């Protein structure tokens, strides 16, 4: 039968490093309880971002939460940032062990 797990949604965002602090403040304000950030580079519709200097650095943000909260956060990103920043976001279904944390 296996371990008891529960489903949650993982929201992953690839975007510009220049707005890291702004997005952290947004997440805090929106009641997001946890997130993980790491450095990245890449290419998309806004061209190559090769992390060769501050202006072209990307980050990856990952947030595990329930589906409604994930949609709320993504909705916020969509209205505020999608049109002006290099940004890509997607949902993945994941299983967590301690559902009360997320």
């Amino acid at each position, binding site marked *: 039968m296996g371990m008891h797990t529960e489903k949650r949604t993982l929201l992953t965002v690839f975007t*510009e490093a*220049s*707005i890291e*602090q*702004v997005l952290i*403040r947004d997440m805090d304000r929106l009641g997001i309880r946890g997130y993980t950030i790491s450095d990245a580079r890449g290419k998309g519709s806004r061209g190559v971002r090769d*992390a*060769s*200097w*501050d*202006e072209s*650095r990307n980050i990856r943000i990952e947030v595990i939460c329930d589906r409604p909260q994930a949609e709320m956060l993504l909705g916020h990103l969509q209205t505020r*940032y999608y049109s*002006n*920043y290099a940004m890509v976001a997607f949902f993945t279904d994941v299983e967590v062990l301690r559902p009360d944390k997320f």
Partner: protein
Amino acid sequence: MDPVILFFLFGFVAGLLGSDLKLPSTLYDSLSIFLLLAIGLKGGQGLATQPLLPLLPQIVAVVVLGVLLTLLAYAGLRTLFHFDRPNAAAMASHYGSVSVATFAVAAAWLASRGLDVEPQLAVLLAVMEIPAILVGIVLARGISRDTDWRSLGHEAFLGKGVTLLLGGMAIGWAGGPQGLQPIRGLYFDLFKPVLGLFLMEMGLIVSRQVGELRRRGFTLVLFGLGMPLVSACLGIGTGLLLGLSPGGVTMLATLAASASYIAVPAAMRIAVPEANPAISLAGSLGVTFPFNILLGIPLYHWMASQWMKS
């Protein structure tokens, strides 16, 4: 030619040829921390030997100068170059602010010619980073309710650059020439070779602007060459008004003519998201920075000398 300029040219050519050469971004960050600290220390140790009060009117004067330059650039970009409002505001903000690397090259240029610069120019450098950012934001969006002034103020006053300049100055001032003796070996004696390494990376970064320049070419080149000339004149005027030495006037002209490429882009990206950062950077980094360090500084010095004679 000064070896630090040769480093810049080397980086630029290597970049154009598509070399794999690339400074680790941490090294670039470290070098810029070093340069900012060293400039601050040098300025601060100078200030230690003179009264601070006469600084006040000079600070007010360069704040006014910074605001003026930003407004002027904005007006020019809107009327002559038909930029839209956010892009004009963002670009104007770059040109109203200053470039630390340009300051460092000018300092090296003047030093190698035995021309003294008043120590407070380092203070004025730190001061001039700020007003253009605030003016640029107001130009872009008026004074609206949802501007996050707190975080912008933070960005402007407590950004890495301003903090290091002011901190270095405080240390230099508290220590004085005597107290700094044991640390000269790094912060003063190695300033120039470190600047060379830094400019090599600047050359690489500038070379990456060439693509953007080719796309919007004429406009950017015209503005990127014309604006610093206008700014330098205003800078010389201000310098004469403040009674600075020839070195000081040249330095103030250079500051006025220089365009930011670190503090302002970061602030504008957040405050004026509709502006395309590639445009302002292509102008300030791709045109104005190389122009200033290769031709501008000697030119401004010559202009300053002419005016001071007359």
